[in-house]
């Protein structure tokens, strides 16, 4: 009743004389929606500082930065443009190839492992008979995901410490193997890092895939069982196809970030050991090392912009590919 009356009362007000209409509409727009702009203002200010000023600041890759003034903005305005010089220097070094290769290869391995182990663990969880035990295992498996990379570094160090770590001091002697100086031998890290990465992340991916699997209607399985389909057959023909959208979304998110490495993993867990750079230096750690330690602002900002632009293109491209294949699964 009340609503009806209100709408009836509102109708005649919506048709005032034409001359006045625009003005009153404008006024009522601001009195109604003006508050929205105020609500968004704090976040916009933070966004400008955190994201949009640095985005424009990324152009220092084309400048020869000078430090005559204490203010970044003044320096930015004063420094001369040098075109592509910084990029030329960067790509003349062998580092450019090394960091690109390491970043991409590690990420490819991580993406594949996250997918296989994530889906695998989720399937196993789903088939555990005792749901309470499943909950318990899920909780412990998720634990590493909540630990900071510093703690990861401590854990790994407790195992790999060359003199007194548990690997060299306890495990290897069991098998009669020679101890390995882990933090100076680069060849082992392409194995170690993926293992640590999956140990840390599998809980996260398993939980997400499990949520999708639990959402599947039981009747599909009942029908399949009546038709005599085996467990394996059910997984391949029902479970996997039905969670495909989630698989695609999760993988796409990772592919979009394939040019970005997990800084903490490569910086903390390797203890940023220079002897390991051959197999552990990635774009993010290279930029940090070049900028914060060597102070080479030109080359590191060039590497940063190279990463940002290629990364951006890759997100768009991977999304485009998915749009072509199945429109509903695309991110945007």
């Amino acid at each position, binding site marked *: 009743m009340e609503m009806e009356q209100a709408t009836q009362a509102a109708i005649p007000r919506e048709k005032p004389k034409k001359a006045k209409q625009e003005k009153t509409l404008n006024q009522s727009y601001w009195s109604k929606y003006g508050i929205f702009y105020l609500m968004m203002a704090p976040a916009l200010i933070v966004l400008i*500082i955190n994201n949009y000023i*640095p985005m424009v600041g990324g152009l220092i890759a084309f400048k020869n930065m000078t430090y005559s003034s204490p203010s970044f903005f003044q*320096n930015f305005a004063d420094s001369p443009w040098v075109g592509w010089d910084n990029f030329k220097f960067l790509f003349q070094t062998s580092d450019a190839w090394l960091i690109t290769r390491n970043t991409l290869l590690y990420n490819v391995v991580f993406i594949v492992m996250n997918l296989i182990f994530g889906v695998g663990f989720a399937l196993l969880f789903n088939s555990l008979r005792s749901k309470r035990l499943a909950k318990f295992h899920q909780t412990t498996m998720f634990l590493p995901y909540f*630990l900071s990379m510093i*703690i990861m570094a401590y854990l790994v160090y407790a195992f790999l410490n060359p003199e*007194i770590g*548990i690997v060299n*001091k*306890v495990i290897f002697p069991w098998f009669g193997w020679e101890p390995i100086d882990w933090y100076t031998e680069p060849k082992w890290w392409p194995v170690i890092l993926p293992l640590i990465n999956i140990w840390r992340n599998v809980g996260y991916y398993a939980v997400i895939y499990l949520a999708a699997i639990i959402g599947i209607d039981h009747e599909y399985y009942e029908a399949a069982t009546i038709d005599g389909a085996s467990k394996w057959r059910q997984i391949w023909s029902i479970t996997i196809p039905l969670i495909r959208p989630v698989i695609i979304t999760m993988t796409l998110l990772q592919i979009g970030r394939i040019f970005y490495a997990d800084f903490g993993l490569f910086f903390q867990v390797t*203890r940023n050991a220079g002897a390991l750079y051959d197999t552990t230096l990635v774009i993010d750690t290279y930029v940090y090392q070049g900028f914060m330690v060597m102070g080479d602002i030109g080359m590191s900002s060039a590497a940063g912009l190279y990463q940002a632009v290629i990364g951006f293109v890759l997100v768009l491209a991977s999304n485009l590919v998915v749009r072509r294949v199945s429109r509903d699964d695309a991110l945007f």
Partner: protein
Amino acid sequence: MTTTTLKRKRAKAFSVSEVSRGSNLAINIFFWFYTLLCVIPLLLILAVSFSDEQRVQLNGYKLWPEKFSLGAYDFLVKDWKPIVESYGVSLFVTIVGTLVALTIMTLYAYPISRRDFKHRGIFTFIMFFTILFNSGLVPFYLTYKQGLHLQDTMLVLMMPFFVQAFFVLLIRTFFQNSIPPALMESAKIDGAGELRTFFQIVLPLSLPVLASVGLLCTMNLWNDWFNSLLFITPDGPMSIQFRMYRALLDIQYLSSNSQAYSAIMQANPNFQMPSETARMAMAVIGIGPIIFVYPFFQRYFITGLTVGAVKG
């Protein structure tokens, strides 16, 4: 009667999806093994922290202390100030940072969730674009350090977390899908303004998503060390993570200053710094609170993460 048939039906559905006894056993064994794999590294650190320093130096880390000792904790307690200070910094940054972040992000998410707001497209894009394009470390660092001169402040540890586009879009999607528009409509008819509708109708209904996002923010802030690495010098506020990082590189960072250390040395010239065990004790102190709150909040984390995986 209907309930019994329903029950039977559910029981049947359950049995249909169940694996055989044998494979169930195999899966169980596998998960017990994996659970051990997740817990053992933490137990190792705990064991070392309670071990005798000399035995550890000699025989390496052991999963069970060869000789039980409280020496490491004793050492940390004697010079407790830096650790307590770091805890204070971490707590402050985490609590204030989370509250501010939640407020700012929620306030932004509401307008862009309203279909009748004509600029919602552009403001959504402004947010979304920060996910697609990341300007990188160097200009970010220069903006904070030489643009705003915020080094060695607590603000610099919080501000990068104030707005995370992913969370904003998460909250927006929740507003869009879970708040019935009719409810807002009726509030408006009753004469409530936009602000009042937001605070009295929308927010109380959004507590689940706010809890999840808040917990994710808390975790990000508590675990952060990267901003400390960039902006905090030894004179600045040192969070617990950052102190752990410095202690892993150099055990002396556990002491507030070298004077305290030399005072201990003067009091007892034979004193040997329990470097290995103290380091691990430090890690235990750092991990402690996470382990304690983890089981309680885990559920909300999981809802937050799984909701996040569903695109909006």
